[in-house]
């Protein structure tokens, strides 16, 4: 990893100008994943020290600063107690505790990593992302668009909903082989599946079936047709599909009981 110039701006305005005045400039959040890449970066713009490290609960919304580490989320009382604890649960087995003291939620989201264990949960929670220039956009919009030259400031989560998440791992700290998240807000369900092994995705049709017909068997059938599943060196496509259905059923049963 070669970084020609490393800057730590003192304001968001300065950070925004730096990344927009230099085509190849790159934002650095925690930097733990970035450092694994073999590349040359002309200008790195570090977001440390800009006040983006916080978790606050306000009017039944959880607001998480983009530079908050995964370890802070893991041990935060609202992340443990609200939404059946899925925020804490989904970060606590990502890498090691050491690494979680470096890795940030903003970096995890903006990388749009296919292996992300957190992304499916954020998708079903209909998370709002607040950017410096683009303002508030939904996570669905963010995943569909390309907002590379903007700065993620805050992750906003509505706490007034039910949530559940299920995943399968072979060892304690590996990324999930498959990961299914389910949320319910005013009788409307949202289902998302991660590590398919493609990036976490919202299952629109299956969610609609579950909402309107409350038929979990049918939702499971549609789910594996609607989303793409693949083989990788860890597990096969068929295995992933089968486990996805079992996990969704389990998550649903726990939610309706």
């Amino acid at each position, binding site marked *: *990893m*070669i*970084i*020609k*110039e*490393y800057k*730590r701006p003192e304001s968001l305005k300065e950070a925004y100008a730096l990344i927009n005045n230099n085509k190849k400039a790159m934002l*650095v959040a925690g*930097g*733990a994943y970035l*450092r*694994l890449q073999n590349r040359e*970066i002309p200008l*790195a713009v*570090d977001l*440390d020290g800009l006040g983006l490290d916080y978790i606050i609960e306000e009017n039944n919304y959880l607001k998480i600063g983009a530079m908050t580490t995964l*370890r802070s989320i893991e041990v935060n009382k609202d992340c443990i107690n609200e939404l059946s604890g899925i925020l804490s649960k989904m970060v*606590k087995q990502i*890498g*090691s*505790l*050491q*690494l979680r*003291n*470096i890795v940030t939620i903003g970096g995890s989201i903006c990388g749009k990593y296919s292996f992300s264990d957190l992304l499916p949960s954020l998708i079903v929670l209909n998370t709002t992302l607040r950017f410096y220039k683009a303002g508030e956009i939904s996570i669905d919009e963010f995943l569909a668009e390309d907002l590379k030259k903007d700065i993620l400031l805050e992750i906003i989560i509505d706490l007034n909903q039910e949530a559940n998440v299920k995943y399968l791992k072979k060892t*304690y*700290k590996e990324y999930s082989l498959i990961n299914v998240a389910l949320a319910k807000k005013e009788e409307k369900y949202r289902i998302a599946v991660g590590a398919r092994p493609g990036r976490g995705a919202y299952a629109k049709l299956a969610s609609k079936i579950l909402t309107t017909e409350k038929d979990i068997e049918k939702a499971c059938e549609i789910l594996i047709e609607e989303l793409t599943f693949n083989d990788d060196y860890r597990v096969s496509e068929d295995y992933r599909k089968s486990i996805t259905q079992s996990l969704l059923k389990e998550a649903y049963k726990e939610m309706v009981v």
Partner: protein
Amino acid sequence: MTAITLNINDTDYEVMVDGGDMLVDTLRALGFTSVKKGCDTGSCGVCSILLDGKVIPSCSLFTMKAREHKILTIDGIEEKAREIGHFLLEEGVDQCGFCTPGLIMSIVAMENDLKVYTEESIKHYLVGNLCRCTGYEGQLRSIKKYLEVS
């Protein structure tokens, strides 16, 4: 190269660093070879140090990010390291010794961080400290004895 100040074990060091330098390399170049370099991908934990009391893999932190923070290596806690090392020795899990400094730094962070210890919470805390000699059972026994929870 940029001149920066790093506070390591309560002493300030002036160092010249490149933007892409990782903390483990900077520390080792300064003579802190107790900080081992293993996987270099943030997986094995042998390069663990404390940054403002929080344990981190120093291979995964840009040196530039360590400015204005307090870095603690095992050299800064000699007495405590000897005390924990004694418990590891008693169980015969010092073995090759390569993972020991990183493990001890994680144990120190755990002591500062956790109020109650259970076998589960100890394992959860230390899952990122790999031991190629696979001394995990013995390590757990010695850590429990050290923490007086066995």
